[in-house]
């Protein structure tokens, strides 16, 4: 679901007469859109940085250098460093199976991959708590072997894995479907092995889409709040991720600290957007180039 179609702005051809709104109407519409986006997107963003830096750089940097905050940053990076590669491998495997082959129940499988998008993060946390908590069936067994999942880092990682399952797969499936299988078949006919074909033929053709999925997956992995909150135990310096740290600081009357951590996350969002825009631009360029090339690859959507 979060994998909605991305923006494809192109340079517009000049429109014919009679199909353009008059100047005032147009200005009104543009104005309304700009005001709406300004209020809902730009103001919150500016507000985060304003509140974080309101008491000066020194306070800001001191807030970020706090040991518990640093450890929250480390944990967030660790969680993303596990969740993103794991779900990238999953996304590649799932996309290969779904895009290159026909089998029964394929539609069901695709729906299943999408499922975590539509489940409330809180419910995602809850189901893991039920599965691994001490009251649950597995919980007592795990406890006997001294394995800690709930209220510890493994629980946080699992919850993050759950909520980020679809990102890479969602990007790759339509892309791989649209590129078809002719090139892979050609490579195989010429004697390339399966892995070779994958590395040298498939992967290059979907690389931008793959990166795109990875970036979105990473943003969500670092920013997840609800599911992680249910499973965290909220131990400062140990099981607090950055979003949880924001909440904790806010409750400690430390608004500056909360906004300082929030500003890092907002920065992450901005970097994500920049990468995303760059990738879209690259993809469009490749796409345009492919279209200009003689039609040997004419089955684009």
């Amino acid at each position, binding site marked *: 679901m979060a994998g909605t179609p991305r923006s494809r702005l192109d340079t517009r051809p000049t429109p014919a007469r009679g199909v353009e709104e008059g100047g005032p109407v147009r200005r009104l519409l543009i104005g309304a859109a700009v005001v709406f986006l300004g209020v809902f997107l730009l103001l919150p963003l500016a507000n985060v940085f304003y509140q974080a830096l309101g008491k000066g750089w020194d306070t800001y940097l001191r807030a970020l250098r706090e040991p518990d905050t640093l450890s929250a940053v480390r944990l967030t990076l660790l969680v993303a460093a596990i969740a993103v590669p794991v779900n990238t491998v999953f996304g590649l495997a799932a996309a290969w199976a779904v895009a290159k082959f026909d089998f029964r129940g394929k539609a069901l499988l695709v729906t299943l991959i999408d499922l975590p998008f539509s489940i409330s993060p809180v419910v995602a946390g809850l189901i893991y708590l039920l599965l691994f908590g001490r009251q649950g069936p597995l919980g007592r067994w795990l406890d006997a072997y001294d394995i800690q999942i*709930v209220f510890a880092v493994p629980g946080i990682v699992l919850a993050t894995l759950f909520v980020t399952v679809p990102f890479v797969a969602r990007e790759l499936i339509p892309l791989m479907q649209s590129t078809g299988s002719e090139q892979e078949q050609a490579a195989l006919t010429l004697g390339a092995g399966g892995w070779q074909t994958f590395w040298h033929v498939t992967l290059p053709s979907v690389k931008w889409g793959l990166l795109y999925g990875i970036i979105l997956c990473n943003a969500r992995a670092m920013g997840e709040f609800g599911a992680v909150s249910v499973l965290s135990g909220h131990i400062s310096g140990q099981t607090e991720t950055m979003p949880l740290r924001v909440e904790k600081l806010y409750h400690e009357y430390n608004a500056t600290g909360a906004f300082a951590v929030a500003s890092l996350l907002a920065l992450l969002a901005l970097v994500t957007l920049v990468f995303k825009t760059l990738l879209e631009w690259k993809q469009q360029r490749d796409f345009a180039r492919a279209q200009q090339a003689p039609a040997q690859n004419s089955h684009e959507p």
Partner: protein
Amino acid sequence: MRRWLAIVLTGLAVQALGREIRLLNVSYDPTREFYSEFNAAFARYWKGKTGDDVIVQQSHGGSGKQARSVIEGLRADVVTLALAHDIDALAERGRLLPTNWQQRLPHNSAPYTSAIVLAVRRGNPKGIRDWDDLARSGVSVVTPNPKTSGGARWNYLAAWAWAVQQFGDDETRIRDFMTRLFQNVAVFDAGARGASTTFVQRGIGDVLITWENEAFLALREYGTNRFELVIPSVSILAEPPVAWVDQVVQRKGTEAVARAYLEYLYSTEGQELAARHFFRPRAESVAARFAGRFAPLRLVTVDELFGGWRQAHAKHFAEGAIFDQITRSKR
């Protein structure tokens, strides 16, 4: 990707090098500031005594919620909760420590006490003087949820204690008062800290029922130009207890240090730190020195008025008990 790997590896290396003792103290809400200072003091003391580094980590939340997290698997070496009933639950439902835990440390394992007071907006615009003002129509009250917060249960019992003093044995009138009071509650947060955030930062409500120490802290953080304390005619003596969790410390081999940590709460330094964070100290000498900061207040105990926590819980807070009845009659 390579950068990430580097970060992960450094993270693991740091974890492997630091071979200190780690304790987890699972506590209730308004103790954050106190324990962050106390932990540093204890670490100094322990380092001087044994040469070992000890790092105490904290988890804070509503007392009942915290107890449940421990039962559900949160590995607490020590619990420092808002009321004895929550630690009883660890003993009874989780079998994590012996049921006689309260006898293991002085003063029924409660190293400091507190009281329940009222905080109002500057100038006391609604003219709130005592508990009955909270049940007036048009007064908006903020208190956490007694189902999740220990402090909220003390709040509830403090109000009940006033009503008993007022109406004697007439339980219908007591209940009527309690019902009206809880109808006035604007927000039930999960813990005391959430409630004070609601009152202080979100500006909701005319009066906040809260711990004495939490109220003082809010005053200190936000200045007396925004809030005032109102000391009610009667309140309850809140005795937040502490205990080490046998099943966890035995497994981790931290029993000695966990025990010493809690005993240190009773030392002069521990008591002074508690007093400085507006908890009422047990040690007479310390109490005398800090007497100025605690308003003289008529305090009843849960034992004398409610027959102990077990009975109080069964009558008031259990599923379907009086608290459920009076909040259900809400709609």
